[in-house]
């Protein structure tokens, strides 16, 4: 039963990783930028939400609506103002830009909000402590289920969006070949900006859930970025369902590792990540590369 519990908690944790990785995966898929500021943007979203909650005493779940809109705007402006320019200069410049952006966001947060840790767990209400006890060693937490459900909904929703909507098709077309897409009348600049907006909004969503399940502080971004990054790579680049699978694999690897010895939790995740990279010339991933 202990291992059943470990696997289950791993799936829950994986849901969080997948949610965190979603925007990273999208921005890479559409614009081919590795957004090193992703973790910091998530934390920024959490701080904005915290600030509104602190001022209004509303539920964080309600405040998510305005703060996601704000963060969509932040992503949009970021693409138009910063990434678009840097994209013209080759692959290294956007990477440096987002790296610098991460430092700027971390330090602005530090300056504005002080180094204190903040949490939305208290304000989120009973959902953070509610759980259903299956047996002495196995309980299901309401918050974990909620995060997993949100992750599946967001990743599934984005998939549907890319497949079914005009904008989604435009995004796929732009991702494939932006010049040709422009020839058929797609405004690729606008498409990129909206994709960045969506990606940053999902980052903020993950940041808010981080603040609900744990805490955020101004330097929390980079720590979480590594897990999001691993989830994307394990699952397969640019693939949204792959990101969900990657997050789940990473989460389960960590909880099973911890079951053997708590010291192996993060290590087990990293080993799975390395193993996936090592076997990339074989299996499904190689088939994909062949079609590229």
């Amino acid at each position, binding site marked *: 039963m202990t291992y059943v519990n470990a696997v289950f908690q791993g799936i829950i944790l994986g849901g969080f990783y997948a949610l965190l990785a979603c925007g990273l995966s999208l921005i890479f898929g559409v614009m081919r930028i590795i957004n090193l500021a992703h973790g910091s943007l998530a934390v920024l979203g959490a701080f904005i939400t915290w600030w509104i909650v602190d001022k209004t005493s509303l539920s964080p779940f309600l405040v998510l609506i305005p703060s996601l809109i704000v963060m969509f705007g932040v992503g949009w402006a970021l693409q138009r103002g910063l990434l678009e320019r840097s994209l013209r200069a080759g692959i290294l410049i956007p990477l440096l830009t987002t790296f610098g952006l991460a430092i700027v966001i971390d330090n602005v947060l530090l300056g504005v909000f002080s180094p204190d*840790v903040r949490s939305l767990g208290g304000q989120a209400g009973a959902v953070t402590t509610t759980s259903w006890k299956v047996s002495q060693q196995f309980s299901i937490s309401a918050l974990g289920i909620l995060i997993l459900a949100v992750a599946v909904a967001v990743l599934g929703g984005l998939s549907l969006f890319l497949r079914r909507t005009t904008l989604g098709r435009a995004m796929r077309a732009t991702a494939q070949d932006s010049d040709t897409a422009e020839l058929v009348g797609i405004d690729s600049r606008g498409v990129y900006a909206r994709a960045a907006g969506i990606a940053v909004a999902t980052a903020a969503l993950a940041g808010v859930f981080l603040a609900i399940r744990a805490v955020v502080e101004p330097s929390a971004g980079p720590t979480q970025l590594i897990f999001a990054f691993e989830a994307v790579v394990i699952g397969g680049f640019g693939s949204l369902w792959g990101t969900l699978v990657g997050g789940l694999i990473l989460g389960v690897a960590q909880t099973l590792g911890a079951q053997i010895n708590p010291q192996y939790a*993060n290590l087990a995740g990293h080993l799975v990540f390395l193993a996936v990279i090592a076997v990339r010339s074989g299996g499904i991933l190689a088939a994909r590369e062949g079609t590229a």
Partner: protein
Amino acid sequence: MADKIDRILADQISRRDLLKRAGIAGGLLAVPGVLAACGSSTTTTTGGSATTAGGTATTAGSAPAGETIKIGFVSPRTGPASGFGEPDPYVIDLAKKALANGLDIGGKKYNVEIIDKDGQSNPAMGAQVAQELINSDKVDLILTTSTPETINPVSDAAEAAGVPHICTVCPWEAWYFGRGAKPDQPSPFKFGFIFAFGVEQFHQTYVSSWPQIPTNKKIGVMWPNDADGNAIRAALGPLLAKDGYTIVDPGAYENGTNDYSAQISKFKSENCEMFNTFPIPPDFTTFWRQAAQQGFKPKIVQLAKTGLFPSQIEALGDLGNNLAGAAYWAPIFPYKSTLTGVTSKELGDGYEKASGKQWNQQLGPSLSLFDVGIEALKASGNPKDKAAVAAAMAKMKVETPLGILEWGKFPVSPNVVPTTLVNGQWVKGTGKWPFDWVCVDNVEDPNIPTSAKLQPYA
């Protein structure tokens, strides 16, 4: 259908391409210090003009060289340990006000300049700012505080350069033994001094206060795989076992772990009625929420390293009520600062008024650094003579907000003064703050008043 989208996105990007970029990304992640190193320091000169020096009328600008004493101050203001450094600007302001008229030492008047540096919670940066203080600013004294990551590299640089330095807020063992001193040998350090709690202080106040609540004496522990966690596992564990406590240790975990179900299920199956941890603050919040979800509710929850600051408890919401945490300073300490004349109570109240935030434990030791440092400079007779300052430090006795500190009495090392820890508990606030810290034990210093008994967590 989903596969199709996957492929459309995936086809575009070869795996090799991604890894190539990831490699660059990894390289960048490894060098945050390079860009961050542009961080600045602030320098302020306080002090009277040099008019009295030598009896001749001169202006401050034309004071002869050697008339200004330079004191470097290093604490973590940014990075993961920045919470520790947060009240330091307030304390430095207090010290500057007290030093505004300069210092009279050996019949000479000196200006005092305080050079404030950020160690960025990072040993490499700590070493770098210490080198700047020593080589560029040519400081006469270095004061440094908060965590081995900051004070150890600063001390190493200062010791090598022969600059007197005073440290605090780090288990003294981590500073003394952690930098190569051996238990049965003379101290290798001539210029470095520390006043701080050690493992024995944790042990004393823990075993004195825990029996206030009857338990089965089984302690679940979460001691991480870092300098503090491993030191506590090696030193505190055996002491508690000797006192009849059973330690249930699932093993060291890595900082930044996101799931603790393995540990929680072990504590539950072993029926641990007590819990002790030395984690970084974000990890504890994650653990404690998961413990609540999975039904682990010990009677005594003893925190260290996290739970030092009110914001960390507030972040827990209702789960923060009745967590126990020892303090190295609180406004109830019946001592005052020699340099500023400020009592502990005034220090806490003054900070709350100036910052609009609740008092925290860092105020006491930071102000104490200035008390000790300035007294040593005075006692040396010549603050520019580094050997004389260090010699004066070795037999220093001075009242600080932490208590009366006296070097040369501690048998293990002449460099160390162990300071008091008092166990306390966070309870629902009765005044303007969400949580109040109340003192429940004073075994190490009966002058500090207790105001409550330890209450069971659950």
